[in-house]
């Protein structure tokens, strides 16, 4: 049996763990969410450049907190799931 065949055989014989699959989906989802949170920061910056003088600091603060929470949740999902 070649190493490749052995690898496939191992994959087939490994019992399927449903929760591992869910964990992977959660991690991928939170990864995408992290990218979204980063885009939101950029978006707030671009939007606030169009009209200067608006009080946008609360929005920037929210956007940064949002990014921080997204990072935290991704790390949390990697550790506790």
């Amino acid at each position, binding site marked *: 049996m070649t190493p490749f065949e052995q690898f496939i055989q191992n994959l087939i014989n490994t019992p399927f763990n449903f*929760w591992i699959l*869910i964990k992977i989906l*959660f991690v991928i*989802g*939170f990864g995408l*969410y992290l990218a*979204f949170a980063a*885009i*939101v920061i950029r*978006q*707030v910056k*671009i*939007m*606030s*450049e*169009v*009209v*200067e*003088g*608006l*009080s946008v600091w*609360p*929005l920037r603060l*929210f*956007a940064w907190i*949002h990014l921080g*929470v*997204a990072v935290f*949740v991704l790390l*949390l*999902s990697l550790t*506790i*799931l």
Partner: protein
Amino acid sequence: MPDIFVGPQKETKTIPLKKLAMPEKKPVFKKPFGFLSAFIPHPINLRYEFQEKDEKIVLFLRRHFFTNFGWLIVTFCLALVPIFAFSFFPFEFVPLSFRFIGFIAWYLLTFAFAFERFLSWFFNVNIVTDRRIIDVNFPSILYKDISEAKLDNIQDVSSKTGGFARSFLNYGDVLIQTAGTLPELSFEAIPFPDKVAEIINDLIAEEEGEL
């Protein structure tokens, strides 16, 4: 022949032609310029990205705050979903850690929805300057769409109000037809649409008077 009676002469002021054509109006709106204001006449500290040095912003508008009511209700309902879901279905077959992360994920998505809708309302603005009209749109997270029309290219300005909420809260649409490449600009759901149309018409008249 000598005059028998000479009345006191009144001082006559010469009024410039421009003022005769455009009599000064009392300021119609005296509203404080707040963080969530949807109608800001003559904003002092605001500046548009491509504003010229001697150009002045006459009106700064965004959709009436009441237009946010729909998504605020949706957000409120979404926030209640996990509470009801966990009280009706305990989800005991799901491991606790997954339940916890799922709970957080739900509220993150709810927050993202509400924040995006708020940003969309906050930054989709309409600006009227003494030279042009600008419509700033952010149709989605990655797109920016800015349309503008010079006052001398505007052919017709009309306002439209209809429906219970719009009539009661006095907000509606202003449609601006132009002779430029962009056939029509619309200011949607802005407060005092009739006054805005009137102000734009006055500015056009003033602009035509200068030419």
